[in-house]
């Protein structure tokens, strides 16, 4: 009887997760959605504490308190610019926890004296592999985002073979474990190979492809939880895990579409090698400008679009951008933001940074919305973005970024590009935008540049 009640409670919490996610995907209900999700989690935790198997409450209190303190500090103290790293860490911890729980379940089942069944061990294997890949993959992603590991993709000849072999070894260890569940060392061998696989998979991926990777790891963390649900025969875990798996896949898919590339191409493709021949498309055509000149142009503008990229995050320029936005708005200029889906290092990265400085979210326009408006725009200010405003995507079918939807900023009257140098973006291709007649280059640090434009504007009035 009691077990029925427990399972009913798990059903309630799974339903709350579904409601929560539904609400979380609409702007007006998102806050409530998150709370509903948290409530679902609370129900699940409380009902689990009533489980008769739980005899040692001290360990639980130690674990819960430590985790809650660390989690709270991380969540409240993180800078918004460091959000991609934090999401990577949380993804990794979720995956790691799932793998460990599956491992413990294996030990527990063996100490009970029984012979673990085929499906049980198979689920342990699935959970272990996905969990370890998620944990170490997220670790590398964190390292890259934090600047501890080189952001450029690390590629070498025969790398796909190496990955296939390592995956094969992990799978082989898993199959052996399924045949001999009492040889627990095999579990750790499997975890070891899966961990190496997680590192190899992510180390080969460059910074600008991070949005895809983060979304994918998000999906994996869900699938790992789901696999653990099979191990524990707990449908709450299975349902919640697959919901998260689905949500991560939706985001992964959106990110891939925004780059016009398949997931396989992002994970294994040769993107990020510098293919540029550096033929001089810039020679004699690039016009450098000064903050004062930009201020002068802005004086007469009626419509301005700001296009932020990862450079804005790196330079922490969002506060300066807010000042510029406020100043222009107070003078009756219409200002909007054009945001490319893969700008930054995780899905929605630019939106979070702009929201942090109180830019209303109806001013942040999507690609499809903003593109038709460039022709009526007086000035576009590109801040630390490159590949997402590259006209080659539309014109050169041989370019690595061919077919990628881009922000067609060159249709505006004047384009100001704030960038420290002419160096190519992540895709390694030069950007003809920089050499166009209506483009002015402002070679400066993004934050300093915007601040000086603001100052020049204030002085002239």
């Amino acid at each position, binding site marked *: 009887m009691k077990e029925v009640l427990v399972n009913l409670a798990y059903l309630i919490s799974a339903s709350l997760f579904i409601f929560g*996610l*539904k609400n*979380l995907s609409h702007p007006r209900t*998102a806050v409530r959605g*998150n709370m509903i*999700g948290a409530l679902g*989690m609370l129900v699940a935790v409380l009902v689990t*504490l009533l*489980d008769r198997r*739980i*005899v*040692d409450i001290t*360990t*639980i209190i130690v*674990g*819960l308190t430590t*985790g*809650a303190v660390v*989690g*709270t500090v991380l*969540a409240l103290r993180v800078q918004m610019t460091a*959000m991609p790293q934090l*999401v990577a860490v*949380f993804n990794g*911890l*979720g995956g790691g*926890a799932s793998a*460990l*729980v599956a491992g*413990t*379940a294996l030990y*527990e089942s063996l100490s009970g004296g029984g012979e673990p*069944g*085929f499906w049980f061990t198979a689920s342990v294997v699935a959970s272990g592999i996905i969990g370890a890949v998620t944990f170490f993959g997220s670790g590398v992603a964190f390292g890259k985002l934090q600047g501890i590991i080189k952001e450029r993709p690390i590629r070498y000849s025969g790398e796909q073979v190496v990955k296939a072999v390592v995956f094969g070894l992990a799978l082989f260890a898993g199959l052996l474990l399924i045949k001999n569940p009492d040889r627990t060392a095999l579990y750790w061998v499997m975890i070891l190979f899966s961990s190496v696989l997680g590192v190899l998979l992510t180390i080969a991926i460059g910074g600008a492809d991070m949005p895809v990777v983060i979304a994918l790891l*998000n999906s994996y*963390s*869900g699938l790992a939880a789901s696999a653990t649900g099979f191990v*524990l*025969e707990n449908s*709450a*875990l*299975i*349902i*919640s895990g*697959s919901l*998260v*798996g*689905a*949500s991560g*896949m939706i*985001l992964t898919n959106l990110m891939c579409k925004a780059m016009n590339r398949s997931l396989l191409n992002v994970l294994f493709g040769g993107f990020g090698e510098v293919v540029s021949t550096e033929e001089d498309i810039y020679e004699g055509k690039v016009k450098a400008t000064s903050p004062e000149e930009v201020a002068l142009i802005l004086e007469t503008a009626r419509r301005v679009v700001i296009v932020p990229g990862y450079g804005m995050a790196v330079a922490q320029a969002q506060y300066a951008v807010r000042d510029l936005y406020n100043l222009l708005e107070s003078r009756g200029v219409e200002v909007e933001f054009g945001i490319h889906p893969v700008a930054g290092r995780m*899905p*929605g990265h630019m*939106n*979070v940074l702009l*929201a942090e400085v109180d830019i*209303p979210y*109806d001013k*942040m326009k*999507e690609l499809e919305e903003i593109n038709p408006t460039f022709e009526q725009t007086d000035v576009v200010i590109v801040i630390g973005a490159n590949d997402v405003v590259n006209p080659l995507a539309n014109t050169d079918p041989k370019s690595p970024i061919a077919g990628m939807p881009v922000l067609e900023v060159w249709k505006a009257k004047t384009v100001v590009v704030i960038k420290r140098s002419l160096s190519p973006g992540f895709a390694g291709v030069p950007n003809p935008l920089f050499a166009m007649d209506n483009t002015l280059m402002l070679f400066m640090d993004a934050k300093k540049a915007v601040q000086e434009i603001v100052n020049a504007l204030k002085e002239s009035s």
Partner: protein
Amino acid sequence: MDNFVMYLTVFVLAMFVGFEVITKVPPTLHTPLMSGANAISGITIVGALIASGSENTFLAKVLGLIALIFATINVVGGFLVTHRMLGMFRRKE
């Protein structure tokens, strides 16, 4: 085996529910959706609670405790940071 097929059914149906429920997410919500969903994947905390709190070998308990700490960071941190982020999104009054 019977159970496995039943759980597989639950898994597949829940995937479909996920794809149906999360439709047309506006880009503004990409990050909060991701971190909120991630907090939900911390549901593995349920397994970690049982692993660390039940009669177990020392090794299993240690693993369980690590899992519990990981999962709790994931859950608490995930929901909190999502809440904090969502608080920043507002319309112009």
